[in-house]
Protein backbone atom coordinates (compact mmCIF):
# COMPACT_ATOMS: atom_id res chain seq x y z
CA UNK A 1 0.00 0.00 0.00
CA UNK A 2 1.32 3.31 -0.91
CA UNK A 3 1.88 5.96 1.68
CA UNK A 4 -1.11 7.93 2.79
CA UNK A 5 -1.37 11.34 4.35
CA UNK A 6 -3.77 11.98 7.17
CA UNK A 7 -4.81 15.01 9.15
CA UNK A 8 -5.75 14.32 12.72
CA UNK A 9 -7.31 17.00 14.88
CA UNK A 10 -8.53 16.42 18.37
CA UNK A 11 -10.05 18.72 20.95
CA UNK A 12 -9.37 18.46 24.67
CA UNK A 13 -11.29 19.89 27.56
CA UNK A 14 -10.10 23.45 28.24
CA UNK A 15 -9.10 22.54 31.81
CA UNK A 16 -6.68 19.79 30.75
CA UNK A 17 -3.27 20.29 32.44
CA UNK A 18 -0.14 20.46 30.32
CA UNK A 19 1.27 17.17 31.61
CA UNK A 20 -1.80 15.29 30.58
CA UNK A 21 -1.59 16.71 27.07
CA UNK A 22 2.05 15.67 26.91
CA UNK A 23 1.16 12.20 28.16
CA UNK A 24 -1.58 11.78 25.61
CA UNK A 25 0.52 13.00 22.71
CA UNK A 26 3.29 10.69 23.85
CA UNK A 27 1.02 7.65 23.77
CA UNK A 28 -0.20 8.67 20.34
CA UNK A 29 3.35 9.01 19.13
CA UNK A 30 4.04 5.53 20.41
CA UNK A 31 1.08 4.14 18.51
CA UNK A 32 2.23 5.91 15.38
CA UNK A 33 5.77 4.58 15.64
CA UNK A 34 4.46 1.09 16.32
CA UNK A 35 2.64 1.19 13.02
CA UNK A 36 5.65 2.67 11.22
CA UNK A 37 3.94 6.00 10.70
CA UNK A 38 5.56 9.39 10.53
CA UNK A 39 4.53 12.64 12.14
CA UNK A 40 4.91 15.32 9.50
CA UNK A 41 3.68 18.18 11.62
CA UNK A 42 2.45 18.67 15.13
CA UNK A 43 0.75 21.85 16.25
CA UNK A 44 -0.95 22.97 19.38
CA UNK A 45 -3.43 25.66 18.49
CA UNK A 46 -4.14 26.40 22.12
CA UNK A 47 -7.54 27.16 23.56
CA UNK A 48 -10.05 28.10 20.90
CA UNK A 49 -13.72 28.87 20.94
CA UNK A 50 -15.83 26.04 19.61
CA UNK A 51 -18.42 26.87 17.00
CA UNK A 52 -20.98 24.88 18.95
CA UNK A 53 -21.21 23.18 22.30
CA UNK A 54 -19.39 19.89 22.56
CA UNK A 55 -20.15 17.88 25.68
CA UNK A 56 -21.13 21.09 27.47
CA UNK A 57 -17.90 22.89 26.58
CA UNK A 58 -17.74 26.13 24.65
CA UNK A 59 -13.96 26.14 24.39
CA UNK A 60 -11.35 23.52 23.78
CA UNK A 61 -7.65 22.91 23.26
CA UNK A 62 -7.01 22.00 19.63
CA UNK A 63 -4.15 19.72 18.72
CA UNK A 64 -3.33 19.10 15.10
CA UNK A 65 -1.22 16.27 13.70
CA UNK A 66 -0.24 15.61 10.13
CA UNK A 67 0.61 11.95 9.66
CA UNK A 68 2.01 9.73 6.99
CA UNK A 69 1.50 6.03 7.06
CA UNK A 70 1.11 2.94 4.96
CA UNK A 71 -0.90 1.14 7.59
CA UNK A 72 -4.61 1.83 7.80
CA UNK A 73 -4.79 0.08 11.13
CA UNK A 74 -2.87 2.97 12.65
CA UNK A 75 -5.77 5.35 12.19
CA UNK A 76 -8.12 2.81 13.66
CA UNK A 77 -5.92 2.42 16.71
CA UNK A 78 -5.43 6.17 17.11
CA UNK A 79 -9.15 6.78 16.96
CA UNK A 80 -9.76 4.05 19.49
CA UNK A 81 -7.26 5.64 21.85
CA UNK A 82 -8.80 9.07 21.43
CA UNK A 83 -12.25 7.66 22.01
CA UNK A 84 -11.13 6.12 25.25
CA UNK A 85 -9.05 9.07 26.44
CA UNK A 86 -10.98 11.01 29.03
CA UNK A 87 -9.88 14.60 28.23
CA UNK A 88 -10.65 14.27 24.52
CA UNK A 89 -14.05 15.66 23.58
CA UNK A 90 -13.80 15.49 19.79
CA UNK A 91 -11.49 14.11 17.14
CA UNK A 92 -11.40 13.91 13.38
CA UNK A 93 -9.12 12.10 10.95
CA UNK A 94 -9.11 13.04 7.30
CA UNK A 95 -7.27 11.31 4.50
CA UNK A 96 -5.70 13.96 2.33
CA UNK A 97 -3.20 12.27 0.03
CA UNK A 98 -5.55 12.14 -2.94
CA UNK A 99 -6.36 15.81 -2.71
CA UNK A 100 -2.68 16.62 -2.38
CA UNK A 101 -2.04 14.53 -5.48
CA UNK A 102 -4.65 16.53 -7.36
CA UNK A 103 -3.15 19.76 -6.10
CA UNK A 104 0.32 18.77 -7.25
CA UNK A 105 -1.08 17.85 -10.62
CA UNK A 106 -2.79 21.19 -10.98
CA UNK A 107 0.28 23.10 -9.88
CA UNK A 108 2.43 21.17 -12.34
CA UNK A 109 -0.03 21.86 -15.12
CA UNK A 110 -0.09 25.57 -14.35
CA UNK A 111 3.68 25.77 -14.22
CA UNK A 112 3.88 24.04 -17.56
CA UNK A 113 1.45 26.55 -18.98
CA UNK A 114 3.41 29.46 -17.57
CA UNK A 115 6.66 28.02 -18.86
CA UNK A 116 5.15 27.73 -22.30
CA UNK A 117 3.72 31.23 -22.37
CA UNK A 118 6.78 33.52 -21.98
CA UNK A 119 8.13 32.51 -25.38
CA UNK A 120 5.26 34.28 -27.05
CA UNK A 121 5.03 37.11 -24.58
CA UNK A 122 8.74 37.72 -24.08
CA UNK A 123 9.16 40.39 -26.79
CA UNK A 124 6.27 42.58 -25.56
CA UNK A 125 7.37 42.10 -21.96
CA UNK A 126 10.88 43.22 -22.82
CA UNK A 127 9.48 46.20 -24.73
CA UNK A 128 7.29 47.09 -21.80
CA UNK A 129 10.21 46.77 -19.41
CA UNK A 130 12.37 49.09 -21.45
CA UNK A 131 10.12 52.17 -21.23
CA UNK A 132 9.62 51.67 -17.53
CA UNK A 133 13.35 51.50 -17.18
CA UNK A 134 13.66 54.83 -18.95
CA UNK A 135 10.97 56.54 -17.00
CA UNK A 136 12.65 56.45 -13.59
CA UNK A 137 15.83 57.80 -15.10
CA UNK A 138 13.85 60.53 -16.82
CA UNK A 139 12.07 61.65 -13.68
CA UNK A 140 15.23 62.40 -11.68
CA UNK A 141 16.49 64.46 -14.64
CA UNK A 142 13.41 66.66 -14.59
Amino acid at each position, binding site marked *: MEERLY*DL*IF*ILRPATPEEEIAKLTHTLEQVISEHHGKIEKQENWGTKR*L*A*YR*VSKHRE*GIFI*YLSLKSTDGEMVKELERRLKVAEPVI*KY*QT*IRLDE*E*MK*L*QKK*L*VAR*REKKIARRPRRQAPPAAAAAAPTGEQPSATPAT
Partner: protein
Amino acid sequence: MSDQENVPPAAPPAPAAPAAPSGPPSAPRPRSSGPGGGGDRGDRGDRGGRPPRDDRGGGGPGGGPGGPGGRKGKRQFFRKRKVCRFCVDKVDFIDYKKAEMLHQFVQDRGKILPRRMTGTCSRHQRWLCEAIKRARNIALLPFASEL
Protein backbone atom coordinates in the same frame (compact mmCIF):
# COMPACT_ATOMS: atom_id res chain seq x y z
CA MET B 1 -58.22 66.49 -17.35
CA SER B 2 -58.84 63.97 -20.06
CA ASP B 3 -56.25 65.70 -22.20
CA GLN B 4 -53.76 65.59 -19.42
CA GLU B 5 -54.50 62.00 -18.92
CA ASN B 6 -53.95 61.36 -22.54
CA VAL B 7 -50.55 62.90 -22.50
CA PRO B 8 -48.85 60.51 -20.07
CA PRO B 9 -50.08 57.41 -21.89
CA ALA B 10 -48.78 59.01 -25.04
CA ALA B 11 -45.37 59.41 -23.54
CA PRO B 12 -44.69 55.76 -22.74
CA PRO B 13 -45.26 54.63 -26.30
CA ALA B 14 -42.49 56.97 -27.38
CA PRO B 15 -39.82 55.28 -25.24
CA ALA B 16 -41.41 52.00 -26.05
CA ALA B 17 -40.88 52.61 -29.72
CA PRO B 18 -37.10 52.96 -29.45
CA ALA B 19 -37.21 49.96 -27.21
CA ALA B 20 -38.92 47.94 -29.88
CA PRO B 21 -35.87 47.74 -32.17
CA SER B 22 -33.91 46.53 -29.20
CA GLY B 23 -36.51 43.85 -28.75
CA PRO B 24 -34.51 41.15 -30.52
CA PRO B 25 -31.39 41.86 -28.48
CA SER B 26 -33.46 41.93 -25.33
CA ALA B 27 -34.75 38.48 -26.11
CA PRO B 28 -31.40 36.75 -25.58
CA ARG B 29 -30.82 38.90 -22.54
CA PRO B 30 -33.02 36.99 -20.11
CA ARG B 31 -31.76 33.78 -21.57
CA SER B 32 -28.15 34.71 -20.96
CA SER B 33 -28.98 35.90 -17.48
CA GLY B 34 -30.49 32.46 -16.94
CA PRO B 35 -27.20 30.58 -16.91
CA GLY B 36 -25.66 33.33 -14.84
CA GLY B 37 -28.38 33.38 -12.25
CA GLY B 38 -29.30 29.75 -12.30
CA GLY B 39 -25.74 28.72 -12.91
CA ASP B 40 -25.77 26.71 -9.75
CA ARG B 41 -27.44 23.95 -11.67
CA GLY B 42 -25.06 23.43 -14.57
CA ASP B 43 -21.36 23.76 -14.04
CA ARG B 44 -20.99 25.12 -17.53
CA GLY B 45 -23.40 27.92 -16.79
CA ASP B 46 -20.89 30.75 -16.85
CA ARG B 47 -19.11 29.36 -19.84
CA GLY B 48 -22.34 29.06 -21.76
CA GLY B 49 -23.25 32.57 -20.76
CA ARG B 50 -20.14 34.10 -22.23
CA PRO B 51 -20.59 33.60 -25.98
CA PRO B 52 -23.98 35.33 -26.16
CA ARG B 53 -22.57 38.21 -24.17
CA ASP B 54 -19.74 38.64 -26.64
CA ASP B 55 -22.18 38.52 -29.53
CA ARG B 56 -24.18 41.27 -27.97
CA GLY B 57 -21.08 43.31 -27.37
CA GLY B 58 -20.21 43.08 -31.05
CA GLY B 59 -23.70 44.01 -32.17
CA GLY B 60 -24.16 46.72 -29.59
CA PRO B 61 -22.62 50.17 -29.62
CA GLY B 62 -20.12 49.38 -26.87
CA GLY B 63 -18.50 46.30 -28.26
CA GLY B 64 -16.15 43.93 -26.50
CA PRO B 65 -15.36 44.55 -22.86
CA GLY B 66 -16.98 47.97 -23.14
CA GLY B 67 -20.28 46.17 -23.56
CA PRO B 68 -21.10 46.28 -19.84
CA GLY B 69 -20.65 50.03 -19.83
CA GLY B 70 -22.87 50.44 -22.84
CA ARG B 71 -25.48 48.18 -21.35
CA LYS B 72 -25.46 50.14 -18.13
CA GLY B 73 -27.17 53.04 -19.87
CA LYS B 74 -29.80 50.83 -21.41
CA ARG B 75 -30.40 48.53 -18.52
CA GLN B 76 -30.19 49.61 -14.92
CA PHE B 77 -30.12 46.16 -13.41
CA PHE B 78 -26.65 45.39 -14.66
CA ARG B 79 -24.50 43.91 -11.97
CA LYS B 80 -20.73 43.60 -11.97
CA ARG B 81 -19.72 40.18 -13.17
CA LYS B 82 -18.63 38.11 -10.21
CA VAL B 83 -15.37 36.23 -10.49
CA CYS B 84 -14.39 33.15 -8.59
CA ARG B 85 -12.09 34.33 -5.84
CA PHE B 86 -10.27 31.03 -5.70
CA CYS B 87 -9.60 31.10 -9.43
CA VAL B 88 -8.14 34.58 -9.13
CA ASP B 89 -5.85 33.46 -6.33
CA LYS B 90 -5.15 30.17 -8.15
CA VAL B 91 -6.12 28.02 -5.21
CA ASP B 92 -5.66 24.29 -5.78
CA PHE B 93 -6.72 23.09 -2.38
CA ILE B 94 -9.12 24.71 0.03
CA ASP B 95 -7.88 24.16 3.54
CA TYR B 96 -10.61 23.26 5.99
CA LYS B 97 -8.43 24.49 8.84
CA LYS B 98 -8.69 28.14 7.78
CA ALA B 99 -11.94 28.84 9.54
CA GLU B 100 -11.59 32.61 9.16
CA MET B 101 -11.49 32.31 5.39
CA LEU B 102 -14.35 29.81 5.28
CA HIS B 103 -16.44 32.16 7.37
CA GLN B 104 -16.79 34.47 4.37
CA PHE B 105 -18.65 31.77 2.47
CA VAL B 106 -21.14 31.03 5.19
CA GLN B 107 -24.23 32.94 6.24
CA ASP B 108 -24.62 34.31 9.74
CA ARG B 109 -26.58 31.28 10.76
CA GLY B 110 -24.06 28.89 9.27
CA LYS B 111 -25.55 28.09 5.88
CA ILE B 112 -23.20 27.72 2.95
CA LEU B 113 -23.62 30.66 0.58
CA PRO B 114 -24.76 29.67 -2.91
CA ARG B 115 -22.59 30.25 -5.93
CA ARG B 116 -24.88 32.93 -7.26
CA MET B 117 -24.07 35.03 -4.21
CA THR B 118 -20.33 34.55 -4.08
CA GLY B 119 -19.51 33.97 -7.75
CA THR B 120 -17.42 30.93 -6.96
CA CYS B 121 -16.90 28.59 -9.90
CA SER B 122 -18.45 25.16 -9.72
CA ARG B 123 -15.24 23.29 -9.10
CA HIS B 124 -14.15 25.55 -6.27
CA GLN B 125 -17.64 25.54 -4.81
CA ARG B 126 -17.41 21.77 -4.63
CA TRP B 127 -14.10 21.98 -2.81
CA LEU B 128 -15.33 24.77 -0.62
CA CYS B 129 -18.40 22.80 0.33
CA GLU B 130 -16.24 19.88 1.36
CA ALA B 131 -13.92 22.12 3.38
CA ILE B 132 -16.82 23.78 5.18
CA LYS B 133 -18.29 20.43 6.09
CA ARG B 134 -14.99 19.22 7.46
CA ALA B 135 -14.56 22.40 9.46
CA ARG B 136 -18.06 21.94 10.83
CA ASN B 137 -17.28 18.45 11.99
CA ILE B 138 -14.39 19.59 14.11
CA ALA B 139 -16.25 22.58 15.58
CA LEU B 140 -14.39 25.24 13.62
CA LEU B 141 -17.61 26.31 11.90
CA PRO B 142 -21.16 26.06 13.19
CA PHE B 143 -23.74 23.69 11.76
CA ALA B 144 -26.36 26.21 12.81
CA SER B 145 -25.31 29.00 15.07
CA GLU B 146 -27.71 29.83 17.85
CA LEU B 147 -28.69 33.46 18.18
